[in-house]
């Protein structure tokens, strides 16, 4: 069964350092999402891509976060500089072009700890 791949699974960094997370969606899935899940809460959207274009980044803290999906396949989410409040699980999800509303399939996540 095809899965969404993410790496690394765990990342520990010190505040003010730069971190990057990678996501490879299910093959053929045009839509890719990055969500952030703080402990004890549900995931919240950071950014949505349709192919290589950003569809929604209204909740992305653009002063420190950036995301790209240059060839419309895999994606990278970067934080620079990291802050203590960025400690969370970062989840990548992808969905197909199925009509009318396809399910989103999630990767295992990257757990970030900022010290």
């Amino acid at each position, binding site marked *: 069964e095809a899965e969404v791949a993410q790496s690394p699974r765990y990342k520990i960094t010190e505040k003010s350092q730069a971190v990057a997370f990678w996501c490879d969606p299910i093959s053929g899935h045009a*839509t890719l999402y990055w969500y952030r899940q703080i402990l*004890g809460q549900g995931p919240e*959207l950071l950014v949505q891509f349709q192919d290589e274009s950003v569809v929604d980044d209204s909740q992305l803290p653009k002063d420190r976060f950036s995301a790209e999906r240059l060839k419309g396949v895999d994606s990278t989410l970067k934080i620079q500089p990291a802050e203590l409040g960025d400690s969370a699980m970062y989840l990548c999800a992808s969905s197909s072009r199925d009509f009318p509303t396809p399910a989103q399939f999630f990767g*295992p996540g990257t757990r970030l700890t900022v010290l």
Partner: protein
Amino acid sequence: AQSVAQPEDQVNVAEGNPLTVKCTYSVSGNPYLFWYVQYPNRGLQFLLKYITGDNLVKGSYGFEAEFNKSQTSFHLKKPSALVSDSALYFCAVSRYSGNTPLVFGKGTRLSVIA
């Protein structure tokens, strides 16, 4: 704006008994509703979705959910709980059809006791 409420932080049920995890939603227009399950240090796994049609939706691992428009609810159910069902369950809603972001509830931890 759309929102989801999961009124119970924790649900405990004995193995073999039926289980219900509650979810209510708020959205203008037609809701598109989803249930996901999360095991420790894992991503979310899709269980089922309601788009339109029958109010009772069947999903993976024997789970089903009942859509009730008048009560704006979408409760997750299973006739006979297993210990392996113990996990964190999330209800989610989208306001639009197609590829749109989901708005999640805060989650309900289900504990099935042998």
